[in-house]
């Protein structure tokens, strides 16, 4: 024949019995990967444990429902907790519709042009901009130009700006997971684009969108720099009554307590950290719960 078979590779000595451990490299890699996972988890656990240990004497109902005080043993966290809750609610109300709409436009409507690509690249860039810059923008735009003053709404708008790129990215990711053949099925039934998005695409993308939004919120809850920049107060002896009230937030309250010389305030700060971390973990857990719940309903 003109086309001879290739010479077979000589068989290794010992047949199927491995002469040395052929999986050595794999095992080593697995160990390194495991270490990379365990190490940060340990650090987090130590931090949380340490804060918890210090905080024990102050963690009480009185701490959660008390107002800040000059006496560290009486200082409470209620205004900060209320401020943070209000901020998060407002941010969700502002950033969710705008972010999801922007994602729908970019993913479903925008033509594939250089303008679109420029916008896309810049959204990714904005997600990486240091948060203090958003604080400066918020100070200039909301506090001064729009004369919202150092209000809850100014803080919420500033944090919304910070979150929008992340919400848009997460929502686009979720929209992209909706299989193309389902959109085609809707078009073939005489649906226009908007009813396809509303009836078929959004219900499927919803778990991903909400997870993205909640995880962004959980990140924003700890943001301190932009709030300090726009002048969120550290000593607030009242609860915010409207969106134009001045306010404080958990990380700012903690920052304030940590920078005091009295040891008693450091204990209060530790207790504040425990509260902040708990709120964050609850948010993360609810994201996981929501996703699992919605996805069980929607399986294919």
């Amino acid at each position, binding site marked *: 024949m003109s086309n001879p078979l290739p010479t077979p590779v000589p068989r290794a000595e010992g047949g199927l019995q491995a002469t040395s451990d052929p999986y050595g490299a794999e095992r080593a890699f697995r160990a390194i990967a495991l270490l990379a996972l365990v190490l940060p988890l340990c650090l987090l656990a130590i931090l949380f444990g340490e804060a918890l240990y210090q905080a024990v004497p102050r963690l009480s109902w009185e701490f959660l429902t008390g107002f800040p005080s000059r006496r560290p043993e009486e200082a409470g966290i209620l205004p900060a907790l209320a401020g943070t809750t209000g901020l998060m609610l407002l941010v969700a109300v502002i950033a969710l519709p705008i972010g999801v709409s922007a994602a729908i436009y970019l993913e479903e409507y925008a033509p594939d042009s250089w303008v679109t690509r420029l916008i896309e690249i810049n959204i990714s860039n904005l997600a990486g901009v240091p948060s203090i810059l958003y604080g400066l923008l918020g100070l200039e735009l909301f506090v001064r130009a729009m004369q919202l003053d150092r209000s809850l709404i100014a803080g919420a708008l500033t944090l919304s700006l910070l979150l929008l790129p992340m919400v848009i990215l997460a929502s686009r990711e979720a929209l992209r997971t909706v299989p193309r053949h389902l959109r085609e099925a809707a078009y073939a*039934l005489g649906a226009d684009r908007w009813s396809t998005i509303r009836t078929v695409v959004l219900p499927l993308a919803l778990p991903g969108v909400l997870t993205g939004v909640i995880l962004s919120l959980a990140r924003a809850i700890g943001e301190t720099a932009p709030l300090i920049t726009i002048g969120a107060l550290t000593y607030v002896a009242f609860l915010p009554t409207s969106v134009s009230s001045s306010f404080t937030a958990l990380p700012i309250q903690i920052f304030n307590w940590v920078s005091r010389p009295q040891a008693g305030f450091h204990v209060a700060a530790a207790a504040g950290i425990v509260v902040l971390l708990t709120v964050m973990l609850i948010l993360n857990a609810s994201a996981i719960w929501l996703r699992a719940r919605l996805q069980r309903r929607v399986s294919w």
Partner: protein
Amino acid sequence: MVTPKMSARGVRAFFGASEALKGIDMDIAPRQVTAVIGPSGCGKSTFVRCLNRMHEVTPGARVTGSVTLEGEDIYGPGVNPVQVRRRVGMVFQKPNPFPTMTIRENVLAGPRLQGLKVADPDRVVEGALRGAALWDEVKDALGRTGVHLSGGQQQRLCIARALALEPEVLLMDEPCSALDPIATARVEELIVQLRERYTIVIVTHNMQQAARVADTTAFFYLGDLVEHTPTDTIFTRPRDRRTEDYITGRFG
């Protein structure tokens, strides 16, 4: 010859710069089953997608030429593709019921997506599911999602979903290629029944299937329509050498 239900004249379809259909002239007779066969990549799926303006949904795809439905050009100026798709329904290769909807909601998805109010939804659901020969199997599970159904049942659900809009023409793009032989037989029986009321165009890889269900069969090759004749003729006395080579299994 009866007036054709649909007529394609000089239909050329493109994906970007590449030409998938090179000028198709073809008539589709009313209340008959027209099969479209040919090797992979011959343009048969593209052709049926030109018949309800689904080709242009793919980014970068476009169509030239004309396709008439009852004498009216569906590519004419001012024609809304959404209106075309209400009259020319489609069933896809892979069963694609909407996963967020129940069986009942799936059947009613067409009117709902179009924003139409259904006067008697129960009657529409039962009628469409009976039409798709699925009613007896799902009548007690209308409130469950369609994802628990078998592949063949899902495909019949998709047929029911298309029938609920009472289309005039039903396009089927390899509707059995994801189904086992038993489910395939059921869908084929269904096609023969549906022929009483609808004009059907079915793309198939399976020549036996074309022989079983189709009144006429069209053979596509490399973006051309090679021949379109009554089904028994094409399988017994093909005119073109390429058709003969294909149906005798010499290529494709």
